[in-house]
């Protein structure tokens, strides 16, 4: 609008007509306003070439979502304030996020607390978290998806073992104690802590996961099933909640995260929605496991990679 007013000499009403015409793809109206724009520019002393260039730049907005400046400033301010709190009060932000995880909302019943948790008042207190925040560094969230029995957990175990052998402190969150492949595979491995820290990503306390023994950290979530008892959601778009939770854990722990997600869980989400489009924005890499051969080789499709590569390949899994 401002460009049309400055160069084409439009008044506010004309500029708004142009905004609407471009937004709604009204070719005839746009063309008519184009004539008025060029006339106004000529009257204002602009060279024909310069006016043409300005008109082209304005026209490039056609059909695209174009935000009003006031809308953008208003919402950017809100996002900035949230970031400010994360910078200056990270422990309180983390505690608030945890508290909200227990709070019922229309689409989310809230995570039920056990009697012990209720008695201890766990959740939502900064003191429960005691997060240490080192300087920011690159953190990556890797999502491993596929049906059950395709080698996802074995892959995560292999990565965890390798990281632990290289001096990295690894914390693995399992689905249930002593009944999970990851637990059986890794519980006795030096340098790896395996524990049941709840079925939900948001239940993890970072200080519980890490002792500070390693020079680096890795967080592994095994079997993030997406039935309603786990995610507590009834809407497909709330896949984003999972993405945010993973990002938040990475943020709180300042560490890479590997999340293993079953896609054949008999729940309403996976029948109706493909999780990838919703979670893509929150993950740096996504690997889909599609099957395991007789030789213990898992077939994988790299959907998204931090190196930009993608395609089908196989990986050999240890101890599968």
């Amino acid at each position, binding site marked *: *609008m*401002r460009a049309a007013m400055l160069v084409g000499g439009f008044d*506010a*009403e004309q*500029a*708004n007509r142009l905004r609407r015409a471009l937004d709604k793809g009204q070719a005839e109206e746009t063309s008519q306003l184009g004539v008025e724009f060029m006339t106004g520019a000529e009257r204002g002393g602009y060279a024909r070439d310069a006016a043409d260039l300005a008109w082209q*730049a304005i026209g*490039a*907005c056609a059909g*695209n*979502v*174009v*935000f*009003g*400046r*006031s*809308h*953008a*400033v*208003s*919402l*950017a*301010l*809100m*996002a*900035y*304030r*949230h*970031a*400010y*709190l*994360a*910078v*200056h*009060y990270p422990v*309180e*932000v983390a*505690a*608030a*996020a945890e*508290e*909200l995880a227990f*709070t019922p*909302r*229309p689409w989310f019943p809230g995570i039920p607390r056990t009697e012990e948790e209720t008695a201890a008042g766990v959740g*939502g207190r*900064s003191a429960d978290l005691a997060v240490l925040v080192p300087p*920011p560094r*690159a*953190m990556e969230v890797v999502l491993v998806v596929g049906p059950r029995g395709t080698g996802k957990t074995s892959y995560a175990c292999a990565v965890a073992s390798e990281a632990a052998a290289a001096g990295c402190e690894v914390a693995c969150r399992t689905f249930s104690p002593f009944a999970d492949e990851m637990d059986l595979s890794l519980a006795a491995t030096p340098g790896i802590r395996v524990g049941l820290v709840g079925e939900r990503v948001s239940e993890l306390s970072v200080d519980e996961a890490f002792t500070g023994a390693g020079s680096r950290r890795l967080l592994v979530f095994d079997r993030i099933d997406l039935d309603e008892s786990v995610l507590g959601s009834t809407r497909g778009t709330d896949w984003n909640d999972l993405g*945010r939770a993973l*990002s*938040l854990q*990475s*943020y*709180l722990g300042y560490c890479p995260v590997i999340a293993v997600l079953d896609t054949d869980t008999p729940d309403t989400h996976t029948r109706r929605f493909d999780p990838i489009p919703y979670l*893509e*924005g*929150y993950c*740096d890499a996504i690997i889909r496991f599609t099957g395991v051969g007789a030789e213990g080789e898992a077939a994988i499709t790299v959907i998204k990679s931090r190196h930009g590569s993608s395609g089908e390949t196989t990986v050999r899994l240890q101890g599968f």
Partner: protein
Amino acid sequence: MGTESTDRTADSELRKTCEAGTLRLYGTDSAANVRERLEHELALIEELGWARGFLTVLATVRAIRDIGVPIGSTPGSSAGSFAYYVLGVTDVDPLEHDLLFERFLLEHDGVLKFTVDIPFRRLNLVAAALGAPPVSTSVCRIEADGVTIGIRGLEVLDRNEATLAKVSAEGGPVLRLADIPADDPQTYDLLCSGSNFGAYWFDTLSARRMLRDLHPRTLDQLAVAFAINRSYFPAQAQAQDLMKRVRGRTWGLGARHSPTSRAQRAASSSSRSR
């Protein structure tokens, strides 16, 4: 809307309230552009018969604050109104950010609409306080006299509210969102680091990459980044090109901080000095 005499009363009341707000914000020596902008808006509001609508919006916002619910933001074009700013309805100064009142006026097609964001979990509390039925979605709509008011629940505001409560409860300062300075270098450092997980709206991979490249250091630049990130790709490419030109030689700070380019700069600088 009301009769001619009630409209005149509303015009007069709105003017009085706006002048009081201007005095509170700017003191007795407000600059000429402040007075001009207010006069310009009040004249248009009067012409359109919107004074009662503005007062209704003000009353609604006050009612929300009176029950202890913080106002998060006012999406849409409302931030373009200086009258709303001096009334305390919004906390974005349209003069500082060069926002057009005309954009606000023309978007509404003769019907005054207003949307305000509040913490999601307070939505039904606010609905009850304003006499509206409970809602199961994230928006509560109230039809007032000539005004449509939308009250939107946002979870990020739940987080902010809960965080501020914890800060003060655990011995920290008593903060309001409006008290947060908009020019904190550490916050921009985080946003531009590419590692800003958990920073609402800017924590997706594409947003993180874009912030790392654009390197915004002011709220206006952050707003441009926000608009680009929420637009479709062709607009993003065009806008990034625009941003490059606007930023000129300071473009690409993130890339220039890499060891290789720093070494290259040092080499280039020493060769120049020789």
